[in-house]
């Protein structure tokens, strides 16, 4: 692996001031794969804040990427509100049963207490360890699932979908109580000194229509973003899948950065909203980072940079979504090394050469 000349925090501050840096920020979004680097089971994250933080720190130290985050799966908030979760021994948690089975239970739904309910206190404790240890050198984030996506896990995915047609009030009610949980949790993130990031996977046009998103998702997500902004914090949002039809809605919420899936046209995204938000994305986490070779990764990173390096509000090289747990380490290294090789300021000519040239540089890294 090549060495960096700047710390991520130093790089971020310099970029914000328009000063010279060593390279573009790059965040492969390693997720629960950190367990493979640290050498623990993923299920240990369910009970040990220390292990969550240690694994994050170990992975950061190994790859030197530009952002660490406490976020283990999509379900801690729904769980804290009564949903049942499957906890595989060494894989990511998944939803077993929504918080309510019958819409008559809707009025029993209560917002979660982040310091008491489910795994939330463990995550908050992990945030403390993370910021204590890495706060000076790299941006530390607390991840949260947005209020709309979380509402799906409260009511059940199929149920909520049907209720959008049959009983709108129940969906709104679930989103409202979900939002209250989100607000309390982001306040806890901010209180620990970290920055919130929002994942809103179900807002995707791959899942719901822009019309439903505007009716049920956007109003609540916007209030969450506004709450975070009112506390003086910027927020980055990730939505999986297709999003082009809702870009303007998302930008209008007041987010600072938007992280896009690899199914989206990066260049088009930059051209349409790059003047208002930072763009993060979108190396394919599955076909390239998980299933590809370091050479494939290098090419994909260069192609992303070609499309978005000149984004007016900034660009971060990122994967299109959280990496699969078994993503080969050498591919994550290749992603970082390509960012280092590209350097800064980005030179489009050099990118062309890197793409057309043979991979002499890679054989060198692989030694």
């Amino acid at each position, binding site marked *: 692996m090549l060495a960096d000349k700047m710390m991520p925090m130093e790089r971020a501050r310099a970029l914000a001031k328009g000063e010279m840096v060593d390279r573009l920020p790059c965040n492969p979004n390693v997720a629960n794969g950190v367990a493979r680097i640290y050498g623990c089971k993923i299920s240990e994250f369910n009970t040990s804040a220390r292990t969550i933080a240690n694994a994050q720190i170990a992975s950061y130290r190994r790859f030197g990427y530009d952002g660490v985050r406490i976020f283990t799966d999509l379900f801690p908030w729904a769980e804290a509100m009564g949903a049942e979760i499957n906890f595989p021994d060494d894989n990511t948690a998944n939803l077993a049963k929504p918080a309510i089975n019958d819409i008559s239970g809707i009025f029993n739904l209560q917002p979660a207490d982040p310091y008491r309910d489910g795994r939330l206190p463990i995550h908050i404790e992990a945030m403390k360890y993370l910021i204590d240890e890495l706060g000076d050198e790299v941006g530390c984030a607390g991840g949260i699932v947005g209020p709309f996506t979380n509402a799906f896990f409260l009511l059940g995915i199929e149920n909520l979908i*049907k209720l959008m047609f049959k009983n709108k009030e129940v969906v709104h009610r679930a989103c409202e109580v979900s939002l209250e949980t989100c607000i309390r949790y982001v306040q806890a993130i901010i209180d620990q000194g970290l920055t919130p990031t929002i994942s809103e996977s179900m807002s995707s046009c791959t899942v719901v229509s822009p019309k439903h998103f505007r009716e049920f998702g956007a109003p609540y997500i916007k209030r969450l973003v506004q709450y975070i902004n009112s506390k003086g914090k910027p927020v980055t949002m990730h939505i999986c899948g297709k999003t082009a039809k809702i870009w303007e809605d998302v930008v209008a919420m007041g987010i600072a950065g938007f992280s896009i899936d690899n199914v989206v046209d990066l260049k088009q995204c930059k051209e349409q909203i790059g003047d208002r938000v930072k763009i993060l994305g979108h190396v394919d986490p599955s*076909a390239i980072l998980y299933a590809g070779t370091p050479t494939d990764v290098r090419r994909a990173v260069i192609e992303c940079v070609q499309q978005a390096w000149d984004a007016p509000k900034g660009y971060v090289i990122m994967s299109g979504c959280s990496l699969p747990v078994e993503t080969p380490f050498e591919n994550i290294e290749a992603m970082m090394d390509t960012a280092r090789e590209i350097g800064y300021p980005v030179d489009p000519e050099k990118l062309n050469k890197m793409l057309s040239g043979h991979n002499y540089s890679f054989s060198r890294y692989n030694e």
Partner: protein
Amino acid sequence: MSDLKDRLLKELSNSVVDMDEVKTIEIAQNFVKHNLDAYEAIDKGLASGMERAGKLYEEEEYYIPELMMCSDAMYAGLDVLKPHLGKNEGGHKHKVVIGVVEGDTHDIGKNLVKIMLETSGFEVVDLGRDVPPMAFIERAKEIDADIIALSTLMTTTMENMATVVQILKDEKNNKIKVMVGGGCISPGFANKIGAYYASDASKAVKMARSLVEKTIVC
């Protein structure tokens, strides 16, 4: 008479597209009352409605929720019409074993593929979600299936798809074809593990048809 039938078939198709469960039931009942052929009502009414809905989905007019509501309407109509089907309909049907791989409990996509396969003449055995690799293979052999269709939404569980393909390969069982799909699956991944890829439910049906047709030719 045939004017009435054509009108009802069109209405049936429309009520599915319009996601109107109650109306679909009413029209199906009306169809039966006039002693019209129930099989035709399914094929040219309900299935045609689902096919149109699938097209609207491809055109991004409809999304997954709309498709689910359409399929609810279709199933409601199916419940009315099924008891009136003759016994010998269909003849030999190609068989598919479908399920969501172990570790994942998202099954919207899988359910849609199942419905679309059923309405286009496949016999589908649904193993549900969170299914271990061996369970697919055992069941497929048991019913002499042509295809195993695997779905997953989460990148964390893709490995299990490769396992299914690998077991079949190890057994030198190349009669059973494996189809994969789901949010995180790409053609590149499918290619790498040696499976066939479909990007959405209607493409899955086309893929399944072409796979069984190929089998016949071989």
